[in-house]
């Protein structure tokens, strides 16, 4: 296939910049960082709620960075296809970790003791 003039042009000169209000995105990210801190300071009774809330805000921030700073919103299908692979694998990894995480949660309910009952008495030293 012979490269078309338009395609060759696309390799030589960048696409025109997209009209993105980067400063507004930055302000939104700073506000979301403050929200994350407030969630951490507030601390919900349920530990799982704390984790989900913190990760949910982090995901929103990550989406802002990826869509606007990394211009993912304006990319063609090919980049989405490339990204689909690690995202599918990530979901697979997270799902495969659920049994391990659940196992850990069942067994460690209380804080472990900081002392060992069979150790040498302190008076020995």
């Amino acid at each position, binding site marked *: 296939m012979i490269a078309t003039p338009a395609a060759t042009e696309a390799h030589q000169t960048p696409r025109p910049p997209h009209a993105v209000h980067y400063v507004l995105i930055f302000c939104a990210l700073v506000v979301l960082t403050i929200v994350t801190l407030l969630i951490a300071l507030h601390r919900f009774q349920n*530990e799982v709620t704390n984790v989900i809330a913190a990760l949910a805000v982090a995901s929103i921030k990550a989406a802002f960075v990826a869509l606007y700073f990394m211009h993912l919103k304006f990319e063609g299908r090919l980049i989405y296809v490339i990204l689909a692979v690690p995202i599918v694998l990530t979901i697979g990894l997270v799902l495969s970790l659920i049994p391990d995480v659940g196992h850990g949660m069942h067994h460690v309910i209380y804080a472990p003791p900081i002392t060992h009952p069979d150790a040498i008495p302190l008076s020995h030293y």
Partner: protein
Amino acid sequence: MSDAVLNANYDAHAPDPVFSHGDPTPPGKIGIWLFLASEIMFFVAILGSYIVLRSGSPHLFSEHSAALSKPLAALNTVVLIFSSLTMALAVEAAQKGYARKVSIYLLLTLLCAAGFMVVKGIEYTNKYYHHTIIAKDHGTFYVYDGHVESQNFKEITLKGYRMPLADTDTGVNVHLVSEQYVAAHPDGISGKVLDEKEAEKKPAEEFKILASAVNTDINCLPWKNIFYSSYFTLTGIHGLHVLAGMIPLSILFIQSLRRKTFAHTTEYVGLYWHFVDLVWIFLFPLLYLI
């Protein structure tokens, strides 16, 4: 040969090598996204390990992560987000061919990267001087936890908390002891326990510990426990990515000072830099806040 002959020969040749793949995305951009895809898998793997380790010892992780500096981490988050802003503006300026603007924005990005590493250095230094010590004082063993202010062959000056140990408190595991635990147990392991807010309000005291009376001494580096191993692994690898990003940023900055702009290359370096920011966005809550 005349131009006509040359053109005739050219037409008779095989077609040009295929530079296009039917998609307007430049090959360089495909390359950097493939690299970022592999980076996603790398970070997902180590974050997955962290989550499994954390779920196995939730109490240990939450107690020790409380000793990390949230204000410093929040400052670093804002610094990195700001560097993403300046990087995006540098890419925009490079696409328009404004070399002077590219220089300014890349310099700001580099300064933010250096600032991030300086703050990280302060955090690491704090952990280096954060000790858990078991030592005898007037016939009683104490567990001390806090920051070593000064140290010589005779004496250690530590600012923090201490709790006495009864003779029955055998085999204290210094790897598990946290500052929060010591502050919450002023009368020893089996004495009264202060709640989290009371322990936080308790002011740190200064202690002079005789070097000859020290039984055990450990600082909060990777060998302290699994939390610190995870903390240093995750932040260390991320820090290496920041340092690695500073290399192409510096090259582009020097080129922009020579009035040369590279729109595509700046965009690819920018994509990498935003990815480094994106990783920190997840590390910040996972390590410091939950």
